[in-house]
């Protein structure tokens, strides 16, 4: 579809998007048994009667898995339900040895939260409908063996690994918003140490529910669910594709069928998977082997006390505490490492705005040029702070400081040592500067006449000349003052 046609479609129809994110929890063991929760081991080496679904085996809930689920719930501002109930979701598939998945249905662990995202510089809340706990299924292998043509292999190492499913309200309005939400959620789950959020290893998985409706309509259109989205980029692409497909179908007089679609990233299109089974076909009922999960206030409080500060809160604090513009605060809080670096540099230098400027321009550029992570930056926050102090004390000019920074970056030396070794100390000595000013004025009668005729915008040229004579080391404030005086004389 051409971009013009797409815009016409979007002028008439409004996309409605909801996301379901499955996230593996960073526990040592599985949700209901003591088998290792570890990616990459030999197939079927982390299994026991419980996760194999052998007769008579009984599940016992992993306390730490609940704690991690609570961290996710509190980090997304959800209300934790004091009693939640595990339920059996019944269906037959070879990756599910018991014939049912232990999940939560009517009474999930947590409800009604939100994740803050930035859309075009504006903060917006994406509503979280619910977070519930469940066990992962095993893994099916369809390729790679001599017998792969006729048979599928089953590896149950992943069966029983703890998951949370985080479900948004259908409040996202564009593929870009969906992407922004996933970035924000990923950052929260990573920093709360709930999950390693590794999409390649499947510890974060996303399904998207997409529908469109005429703008102004209040009822939701029929939705489709897209699975197999293995990167945030593909989530965005698949939603774009599905919105366009639904609009084209409706415009051609067709109907949207509620179904599950698989995203084919190579071909950039969705393929129908199977008509979605109704929820009642899963025949949910309370898991009789697990009593209700009771979470008391003390447990919630102890989890809350150990949560880190998240990007949105940090952004607001940087504006309030350091007087930074919203833009700076947004850039600096994109990663926790940059935010920590900034705070150290701001405190060490006593000049938060200067620290912000140096980080946003020189530091991030140098990292990008070298393709290095911040943890390997040769200029540490304390070193940058010391350099900013030299500028603020008038020892070096801001211009020279750029050279000092480059030198610090390549040699790893401290700013003060570099300034001393190179003789880059700024000259504030009035007599020396006055001599240079006098020399410039004597050598430039034409320019002086122009300036005196009223073209005072040529001041910058004079400053440049004086700086040149002084090897760039003159204090610009003193230069300006002395030039002004000499020209007006």
């Amino acid at each position, binding site marked *: 579809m051409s971009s013009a046609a797409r815009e016409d479609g979007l002028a008439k129809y409004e996309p409605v998007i909801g996301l379901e994110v499955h996230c593996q929890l960073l526990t040592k063991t599985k949700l209901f048994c003591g088998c290792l929760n570890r990616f990459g081991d030999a197939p*079927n080496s982390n299994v026991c009667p419980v996760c*194999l679904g052998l007769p008579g085996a009984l599940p016992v*809930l992993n306390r730490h898995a609940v704690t991690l689920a609570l961290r996710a719930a509190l980090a997304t501002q959800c209300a934790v339900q004091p009693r939640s109930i595990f339920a059996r979701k019944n269906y037959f598939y070879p990756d599910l040895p018991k014939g049912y998945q232990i999940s939560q249905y009517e009474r999930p662990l947590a409800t009604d939260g939100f994740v803050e995202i930035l859309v075009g510089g504006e903060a917006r809340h994406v509503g979280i409908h619910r977070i519930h706990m469940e066990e992962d299924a095993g893994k099916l292998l369809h390729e790679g063996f001599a017998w*792969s043509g006729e048979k599928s292999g089953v590896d149950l190492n992943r069966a029983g690994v703890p998951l949370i499913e985080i479900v948004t309200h259908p409040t996202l309005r564009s593929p870009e918003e969906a992407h922004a939400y996933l970035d924000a959620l990923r950052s929260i789950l990573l920093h709360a140490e709930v999950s390693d959020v590794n999409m390649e290893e499947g510890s974060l998985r996303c399904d998207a529910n997409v529908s469109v409706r005429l703008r102004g309509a209040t009822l939701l259109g029929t939705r489709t669910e897209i699975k197999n989205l293995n990167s945030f980029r593909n989530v965005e692409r698949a939603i774009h594709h599905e919105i366009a497909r639904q609009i084209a179908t409706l415009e051609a007089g067709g109907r949207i069928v509620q179904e599950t679609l698989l995203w084919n990233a190579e071909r950039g299109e969705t393929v129908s998977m199977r008509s979605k089974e109704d929820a009642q076909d899963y025949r949910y009922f309370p898991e009789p082997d697990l009593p*209700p999960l009771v979470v008391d206030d003390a447990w919630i409080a102890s989890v809350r006390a150990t949560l880190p500060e998240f990007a949105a809160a940090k952004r607001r604090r940087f504006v309030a505490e350091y007087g930074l513009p919203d833009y700076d605060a947004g850039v600096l809080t994109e990663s926790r490492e940059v935010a920590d670096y900034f705070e150290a540099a701001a405190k060490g230098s006593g000049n938060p705005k200067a620290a912000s400027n140096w980080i946003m321009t020189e530091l991030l550029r140098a990292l990008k040029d070298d393709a290095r992570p911040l943890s390997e930056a040769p200029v540490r926050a304390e070193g940058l702070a010391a350099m900013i102090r030299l500028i603020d004390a008038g020892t070096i000019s801001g211009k020279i400081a750029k050279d000092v920074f480059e030198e610090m970056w390549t040699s790893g030396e401290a700013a003060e040592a570099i300034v001393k070794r190179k003789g880059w100390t700024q000259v504030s000595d009035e007599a020396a500067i006055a001599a240079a000013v006098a020399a410039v004025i004597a050598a430039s009668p034409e320019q002086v006449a122009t300036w005196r005729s009223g073209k005072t915008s040529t001041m910058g040229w004079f400053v440049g000349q004086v700086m040149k004579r002084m090897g760039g080391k003159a204090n610009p404030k003193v230069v300006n003052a002395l030039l002004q005086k000499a020209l007006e004389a």
Partner: protein
Amino acid sequence: MAKVSVETVDHLARLARLSLTAEERGLFARQIEEILGYAESIQALDTDAVEPMSHARTVASLREDTPVAGLERQAALADAPDPADGLFRVPRVIGG
């Protein structure tokens, strides 16, 4: 009393991946009706003031996140009808 059709039995059988004989379909329809009838007689009781109880124990006992040795792979696969290369094998399933 609830009426259970043969179609409902077929639907349940499909979800449970069971193939039933004509005789069994009729038998199970009648038996499911009896079970639902029993549930209906219980539902006639006034339970408005009673907290639902799905479990005999009211609070879950939890385990610590400590690894416990499970089954050796050989033992895990010992009773499988068709193991190979350390995997359980099943008729090829794809796309589901």
